[in-house]
């Protein structure tokens, strides 16, 4: 429990630091939101009045605490370009991005771990060699390009989905998940390749260890040695990798959303950055940071469950 408490405090601290840095970076960036809202033709008086109204003339810390305070209460501010509350803009986009990364991560686990186990057990065989080549190719293809290839292959040639035919989760949840499948695959593919490779080499490293010989000396079958002894040890580095890669996948979803025309956080993020719509950008970054931090928290817990050498409750 103490361990979890520590992690929660660390999570909160991380989010505070992220929020501070995000706010700071927009504070020092050039460009005046008031001017951009009113247009360059506006009189200096009107700009000044608006600046005063928006609180832009206050000191940095006053602005930061006012923003952070209302953020905590669920008020993320007003979008500069759309003049509507930020939370109403992103509320229905968060589940989309979350679903996309979630499905991609699920694919990663469901495909990479059994595949890694399989080729590690039959290392040197034909499957191992074929997957080695496929792995190299998959790792070399960036997700956005994999997305284009998948759209072409599965969308155009095999007609398994309609490119651009996004269905909102509110309209038809089944079709929504169905549409998410291929974008998620594009995000997951390079990660699957890496995880398979990592698990394979991790297993091969473990096989040589002394405890494996001990296990054989007790009369275990090869399969028992593998599943009872080697696998848990070999998964430790893979879990570390999965945790790290998740942050990457959240970021990767921004690009993939563009490729597949998915109205998730990524799309508003990009338009908001080019519009200098700071409240929206800030809110999205905090949301993403929150997702990443929460996932890391879960990974940490799993990590602790699997490896007793990680500092425990005492």
């Amino acid at each position, binding site marked *: 429990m103490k361990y979890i408490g520590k992690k929660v405090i660390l999570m909160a601290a991380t989010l505070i630091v992220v929020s501070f840095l995000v706010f700071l970076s927009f504070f020092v960036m050039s460009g005046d939101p008031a001017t951009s809202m009113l247009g360059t033709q506006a009189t200096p008086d009107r700009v000044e009045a608006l600046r005063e109204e928006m609180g832009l003339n206050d000191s940095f810390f006053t602005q930061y605490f006012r923003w952070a305070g209302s953020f905590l209460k669920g008020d993320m501010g007003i979008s500069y370009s759309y003049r509507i509350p930020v939370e109403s803009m992103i509320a229905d986009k968060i589940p989309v991005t979350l679903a996309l990364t979630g499905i991609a991560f699920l694919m990663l686990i469901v495909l990479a771990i059994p595949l890694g186990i399989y080729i590690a057990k039959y290392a040197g065989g034909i499957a191992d060699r074929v997957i080695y080549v496929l792995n190299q190719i998959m790792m070399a293809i960036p997700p956005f390009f994999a997305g284009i290839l998948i759209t072409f292959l599965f969308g155009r040639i095999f007609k398994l989905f309609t490119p651009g035919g996004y269905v909102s989760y509110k309209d038809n949840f089944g079709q929504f998940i169905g549409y998410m499948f291929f974008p998620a695959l594009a995000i997951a593919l390079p990660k699957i390749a890496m995880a398979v490779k990592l698990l394979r080499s991790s297993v091969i490293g473990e096989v040589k*260890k*002394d*405890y494996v010989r001990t296990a054989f*000396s*007790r*009369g275990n079958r090869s399969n*028992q040695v593998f599943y009872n002894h080697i696998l*848990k040890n070999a998964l430790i580095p893979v879990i570390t990798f999965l945790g790290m890669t998740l942050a990457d996948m959240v970021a990767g979803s921004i690009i993939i959303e563009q490729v597949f025309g998915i109205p998730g956080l990524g799309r508003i993020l990009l338009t908001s950055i080019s519009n200098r719509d700071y409240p929206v950008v800030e809110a999205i970054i905090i949301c993403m940071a929150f997702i990443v931090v929460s996932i890391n928290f879960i990974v940490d817990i799993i990590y602790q469950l*699997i490896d007793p*050498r990680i500092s425990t409750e005492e």
Partner: protein
Amino acid sequence: MTEIQNLLLEVKNLNIEFHDHLLPETVVYDFDLSVEEGEIIGIVGESGSGKSMTALAIAGLLSRHDMEKRGQILYDGTDLLTCPRSQLRRLQGKEIGMVFQEPMTSLNPVKRIGWQVEESLRIHTQMTKEERKKTAIRLLESVELTDAEKIYKLYPHELSGGMRQRVMIAAAIACEPKILIADEPTTALDVTIQAQIIKLLKKINEEKRTAILFISHDLSLVSRLCEKVVVMQGGYIVETGSTEDIFMHPKEEYTKKLIAAIPKCEKKQG
């Protein structure tokens, strides 16, 4: 060779050859050994003398494809070198227990001590979970670990090297094997612990009539524990005999040198 009815294990003409380089390399030549019930036999020799290879071969743990083994290792009529793996597995851990040199790495780091001590019981017996736990705790007590109940639930990294080696021994004798092969079990431990482990092995031998094959480079330890000694060098058996004979009247030059190399003061590490 006098009491044939008690013969447990007979190694005849064992040759082990590696093929992992351009030229095949023989690491054990024409090794012969017979182990009778309750005997403690020491195999001594310097590093590279082939003693560990012999031990691993007897335990059925040399299964690399790039090596060739010739000769016979007969256990109860079964040739361990040629019998199917399933038959070998039935002996491993049940009839033949093995303790290794490195207590720090020979236990699985992510499994609890109790689980590992019970493992051969789980494989070779029909005991229920409760019976296994009871046996495991009794085993941990029998290797003189205090607070066995607590140790049962710990992980290897929470124990010292000496404690881990005791755990290894407890696990190896769980099924009351007829032969315990101890491959340099004390090399990684400090001298006080060494002496305790030797005493423990002796106790196991006396209580259960377990034959022990004690592999070591340390003649002074062997002289304290073993009745019979096999001296090896460069893959060959140099000399075999009772411990007393070997120590009092060594015939071979190499044996004499080994004896001369024992530090005079027992407190020093050999």
